[in-house]
C-alpha cells in the first residue's frame, strides 16, 4: 500500500473489507447449515421458515450408528428407566434398537464404511507417498533421458477421467477377483495419487540444496545413506503435506468407489448418498454422517493452509 492514502482510497479500502467480511459469512452458510442440521431434532430440520435457533442434540449421531425399528405401543417404563441416556433418546422417538441374541445393539453400516474409507485412504497414501518420494528424488537429482516426457507421462495418468480407467479396470478386476475388495481400491487410489505425489515431492526436493548430500558423500556416506539420513529428514514437511493431500483425495474419491465396490469394501462417499433413497429421508442422520466425514478434511485443511497453493498446482507454484 502506498504510504500516503487519500481519503477516497481509505473509504474504498473500508468498503472492500466490509464486502469481504459479508461475502465470507454468506459463503460459509452452506457449511454452517449442514453442521447445524446434524444437531437438530428431526422435526426442526425441514421447517418453513428454516429454524436457526434450537437446542442442539446428538440424536442424529446415535441414529447414524445404529439400526432401529418403529415400536408398536409404548415402552415399558421400567425398561426405559434402566436404559442408558442414548437408548432413552431412541425410545422417546417411538423407536427401539435392533439387538442380536445376546442383547448387543446392532450397528448400522456407517461405522463399517467409515472404517473402510480410513483403511483404504491410509494404505494408498502410504504407498503413493513412499513410491512418489523415491521417484521424485530420482528425477530431482539425476539426469534421465527424456526426463520431461516421463514427467508429462506421469502427470497425464492423473488427468485421466476415473470413468475411463474404471471400465477396463473393472473387467480386469473381475478376472482376478479384486472387485469389491480393499486391495483393489488401494491399488487404484495409489495409482491415482502417485503422479501427484511425484510432482509435489519433486518441487519440495528441488528446494533442498544438493550441497548437503555432497558434503555427506565426501564424509563417506553412500548415496543411499545420504538420501535416508540427510535428504529425508530435510523433506519431512514436504512429505507430510504430500501425504495429507493424497489422504484427502483418497478419502473423498467417489467414482472409483461407486463402480468398483458395492458392500464389503465400500467407502463412505458412495454409501452416504445411498441412504437417501431408502424410505423417508432423515436429513439429520445424513447431515450427521456428512459432518463426521468432513471433520478430518476440515482439520487437515487447516493444518495444510500454508501449502495449499503448492498442492493445487502440483508443486509448480510456491509461495
Amino acid at each position, binding site marked *: 500500500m502506498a504510504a500516503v492514502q487519500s481519503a477516497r482510497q481509505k473509504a474504498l479500502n473500508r468498503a472492500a473489507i466490509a464486502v469481504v467480511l459479508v461475502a465470507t459469512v454468506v459463503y460459509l*452458510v452452506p457449511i454452517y447449515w449442514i453442521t447445524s442440521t446434524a444437531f437438530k431434532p428431526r422435526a426442526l430440520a425441514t421447517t418453513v421458515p428454516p429454524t436457526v435457533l434450537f437446542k442442539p442434540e446428538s440424536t442424529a449421531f446415535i441414529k447414524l450408528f445404529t439400526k432401529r425399528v418403529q415400536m408398536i405401543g409404548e415402552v415399558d417404563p421400567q425398561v426405559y428407566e434402566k436404559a442408558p441416556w442414548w437408548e432413552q433418546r431412541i425410545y422417546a422417538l417411538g423407536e427401539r434398537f435392533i439387538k442380536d441374541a445376546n442383547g448387543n445393539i446392532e450397528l448400522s453400516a456407517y461405522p463399517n464404511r467409515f472404517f473402510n474409507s480410513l483403511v483404504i485412504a491410509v494404505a494408498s497414501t502410504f504407498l503413493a507417498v513412499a513410491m512418489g518420494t523415491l521417484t521424485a528424488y530420482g528425477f530431482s537429482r539425476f539426469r534421465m533421458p527424456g526426463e520431461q516426457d516421463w514427467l508429462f507421462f506421469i502427470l497425464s495418468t492423473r488427468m485421466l477421467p476415473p470413468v475411463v480407467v474404471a471400465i477396463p479396470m473393472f473387467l480386469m478386476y473381475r478376472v482376478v477377483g479384486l472387485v469389491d475388495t480393499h486391495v483393489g481400491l488401494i491399488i487404484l487410489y495409489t495409482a491415482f495419487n502417485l503422479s501427484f505425489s511425484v510432482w509435489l515431492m519433486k518441487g519440495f526436493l528441488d528446494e533442498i540444496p544438493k550441497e548437503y548430500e555432497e558434503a555427506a558423500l565426501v564424509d563417506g556416506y553412500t548415496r543411499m545413506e545420504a538420501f535416508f539420513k540427510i535428504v529425508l529428514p530435510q523433506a519431512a514437511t514436504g512429505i507430510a503435506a504430500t501425504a495429507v493431500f493424497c489422504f484427502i483425495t483418497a478419502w473423498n474419491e467417489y467414482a472409483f468407489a461407486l463402480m468398483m465396490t458395492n458392500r464389503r469394501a465400500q467407502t463412505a462417499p458412495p454409501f452416504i448418498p445411498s441412504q437417501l433413497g431408502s424410505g423417508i429421508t432423515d436429513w439429520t442422520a445424513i447431515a450427521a454422517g456428512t459432518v463426521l466425514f468432513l471433520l478430518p478434511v476440515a482439520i487437515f485443511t487447516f493444518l495444510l493452509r500454508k501449502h495449499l497453493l503448492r498442492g493445487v498446482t502440483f508443486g509448480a507454484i510456491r509461495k
Partner: protein
Amino acid sequence: MLSTLDPGSPAARRGLSDISIRNLFILPTIAFLIVFNIFPLIYSLGYSFTDFRASFNAPAHFVGLQNYRDLLHDEHVWNNFSVTAKYVLLSVGGQVLMGFGVAMLLNRRIPFKGLITTLLLLPMMMSMVVVGLFWELLYSPSWGIVDYALHLEDFDWLSNPNVALYAIAITDIWMWSPFVMLLCLAGLSAIPQHLYEAAAIDRASRWYTFTRITLPLVTPLLLIAIIFRTMEAFKTFDLAFIMSTQETTELIAIKLYRLAFQEWQTGQSCALAYMVLIMVLAITNIYVKYLNRVKER
C-alpha cells in the same frame, strides 16, 4: 540439477552407482503406472472395436469402427457433449469472475486475512459427493434455505430441466472459485509495489493501471487456473450425478458411466471413453505447457 560426482572419486565408487539408484527409484513407479493405467487403456482400446457386453457371457465379435460410427451419429451423445460444453462455460466462467473479484478485494491489508483465506478454501477440499448432497438440502423446493432467502416459493431447482444445470454450476462455482482466487492472489501479491507507485506518479487512471499492470501480470496464473478448471469441469461426474438425473444435466462422464455400468454396452462405452480420453489429453498437454512456462519464470 545434475549432481553426479566425479566418477573417479572414492565417494562415487562406494555403494550403488547413481545410475542404478536412479533406476531403482524411478522404474517401479513407471512400471506401476503402466500396469494399472496404460495397460487397461490398451485393453479397452481393443474392446472399443467389439460388440462386447460385460453382463453377458457371449464372446466379443470384432465390429471394426462400428461403435465409433454409431456414437458419432447418436444425437444423444452430441447432446451430452453440448451439455458438457455449456456446463464448462458456466462453471469456469463463474469461477473466474468470482475468484478474480474476491482476489482483488482480498489483496490488501485485512483483519483476519489468513483465517478468511483458509475458511474460503475449505469447500474445495471437500468431497464433491458430500457437497452435492448438502446443496440438495439447500435447494430443496419446500423448505430449502435457497428458496427461502430468495423468496422463491417452492421453486424446484434440481427437478426443473431448464434450471438444474445452472443449479449444479452454481454449486461448482461455490466449491471451486476459491481455487481461482488462490492462484490470482498469488499472482497479485507477486506484483512489485513500485510499478503501482510509478503509475501513481504518472497519474495513471485506475483503469489504465488495472489493464496495463495488474491484468498482464496475473494472466499467467489465471490461465493455469482456467485450463485446470476446464479440464476438471469437462470430467465432472460426482456432482452432477448426485444432484440430478435430468437429461439436461447428463454430462459426458455420466453418459459414459450409464453406457458402461447400467446399459452394459462395454464395447461402445470403451469407444466413447477413447473419444473423451483424447480430448482430456489435449487439454492436459496445454496445461503442462503453461505450468512449465510459469515455473521457469
